[in-house]
């Protein structure tokens, strides 16, 4: 097995008196689709925010793609951040920019690509997320929920990341759209050879996408491994979370 894309050791997170993570360890191997599940408020989003460096943990060590996030070297930190992409729960598109400019934004920030190349790249990314060229001129407010996610995904993929992080990618989509989005992510992952970390509540998404599952609870990782392995664990939360899916999933 290759080196882990994310390696978390002894993570401690605290908001005031509220302890969210206490000595959390998690290692995510490359090339896997790791699903992070857990109850509401168990600190999944917080963990993701720490992995992408939006928050510094109180204690513990996080390495992404083999490097520490805050090395102190601005140039190196920036280069590292360009190697992973994040799909935020609400999309977080820039509302003042149209779809084309949103996807082009990270490419323009590189400052060495010319306009035509950027335009071509945006059009390819749009096609990758199954949107049409005419959608490029729409503003974020004119997009449907599913389209916002697709554009956000295209923007996250713009810099050809090795690691893709998805926060609740299918929350707020109807079952059809959600299934389509899942198969889109799956296709892109196979095509681009990405490692993926996703936070989800949805069992369908989980069983369709994830190759590994980590269960977050009681301020640490309760279980980690393949879906079958995790479902066999005997823990009240795991039993209730997978309870509904257990008979169905047992058959596959």
């Amino acid at each position, binding site marked *: 097995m290759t080196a882990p894309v994310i390696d978390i050791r002894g993570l401690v997170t605290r908001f005031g008196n509220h302890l969210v993570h206490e000595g959390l360890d998690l290692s995510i191997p490359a090339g896997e689709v790791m699903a992070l599940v857990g109850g509401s408020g168990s600190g999944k989003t917080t963990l993701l925010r720490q992995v992408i460096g939006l928050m510094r943990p109180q204690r513990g060590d996080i390495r992404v793609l083999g490097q520490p996030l805050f090395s102190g070297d601005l140039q190196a930190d920036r280069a590292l951040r360009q190697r992973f992409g994040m799909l935020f729960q609400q999309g977080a598109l820039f509302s003042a920019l149209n779809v084309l400019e949103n996807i082009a934004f990270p490419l323009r920030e590189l400052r060495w*690509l010319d306009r035509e190349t950027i335009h*071509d*790249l945006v059009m*390819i990314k749009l096609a990758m997320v199954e949107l049409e060229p005419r959608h490029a001129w729409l*503003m974020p407010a004119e997009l449907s929920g599913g389209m916002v996610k697709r554009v956000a995904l295209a923007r996250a993929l713009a810099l050809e990341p090795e690691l893709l992080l998805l926060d609740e990618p299918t929350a707020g989509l109807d079952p059809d759209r959600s299934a389509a989005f899942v198969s889109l992510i799956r296709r892109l992952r196979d095509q*681009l050879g990405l490692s993926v970390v996703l936070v989800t509540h949805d069992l369908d998404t989980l069983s369709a996408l994830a190759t590994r599952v980590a269960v977050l609870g009681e301020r640490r990782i309760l279980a980690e491994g393949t879906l079958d392995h995790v479902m066999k664990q005997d823990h009240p939360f795991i039993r209730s979370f997978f309870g509904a899916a257990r008979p169905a999933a047992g058959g596959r």
Partner: protein
Amino acid sequence: MGVPTVSFEMTGAQPAAVLAGEWTLAGLRGRLDALKRQLASADAARTVRWDLHALTRLDSLGAITLWRAWGDRLPDGLDADPRTLDMLRAAAVLGPCRPAPRARPRRGDSLVALGRLGGALVAQLLGMIALSGQILFDAVRMLRFPQDAPLRELSANLYKTGVTALPITALVGFLIGVVLSYLSALQLKTFGADVFIINILGIGIIRELGPVLVAVLVAGRSGSAMTAQLGVMRVTEEIDALVTMGVPATLRLVLPKVAALVAAMPLLVLWTSASALFGGMVAAAVQLDIGFGFFLDTLPRVVPIANLYIGFGKGLAFGLVIALVACHFGLTVRPNTESLSANTTRSVVSAITCVILVDAVFAIATRHIGMPT
């Protein structure tokens, strides 16, 4: 890491090109132009076989570079593994030519621009009139259903636009009073017309300067806040949520703002004028030796009371104008951050401009009233 390269073997019946290395965003950095030149060279044109097996990785940038170099098609003698081929086919969505960007209005056509500006102005005016009508409608409705009256919002707005504005308006008023008095005193002294400082300050501040000063301050303070608040509520669809719950947005959001400002402005005008007069009085005492007692005695004799009423009336009108303009621009924010910032600017600038216009109307309409004879 493999540097992206292309090399040509121009021997034999089938001149071939061999591509190798990482044709990716990271790998092509700084080498893209050189590779593009190589791909456009005469050697490339004669190549009939393209061997891409040594290529370790290809991403979208590599794919479009090759696609464009090949004249927007895949060459016949292409030899690549399936993964690379997939990437190259993905570039085929680009088609032979780039889609034209959405047509922009032609620049330089000044007549059209002028017409458009006029149209926009008329549209804004119509919008403002419609909003006023809606507020009137809401007010009537509120009279019929008093339990719907947004009293809490009204009191909150009174506090925000009135009470919290007291310190800053007093300070600015005082300073302007001092400056005005000082500068006038320098002139009046040379003519020996010292006592006229009271006439000048009295009429100037109570009738004109006080109301306009407050209007400018309030437009910058409360007008912008109103626009920004309503604008953010539009962006986050909070207004839609309100309407869905059966709460009329104008009744709950706009009416209390307008009513509060109309009520607070005359009082602020009074307060600021008093503060400015006090500043003027202090400066006059220092500069011209005019005592506070004499100043206060003379003021009512040389400044007819009508001036105070005019100042009051201006306060009412300015408050109405500022609140209407602010709410109008707040409600017409389009759901993006750029529009929010543009409309906040527009709101303040238009409010101040409208206030000056209304002030001019006041000046003409009241030209026979309140002047000392």
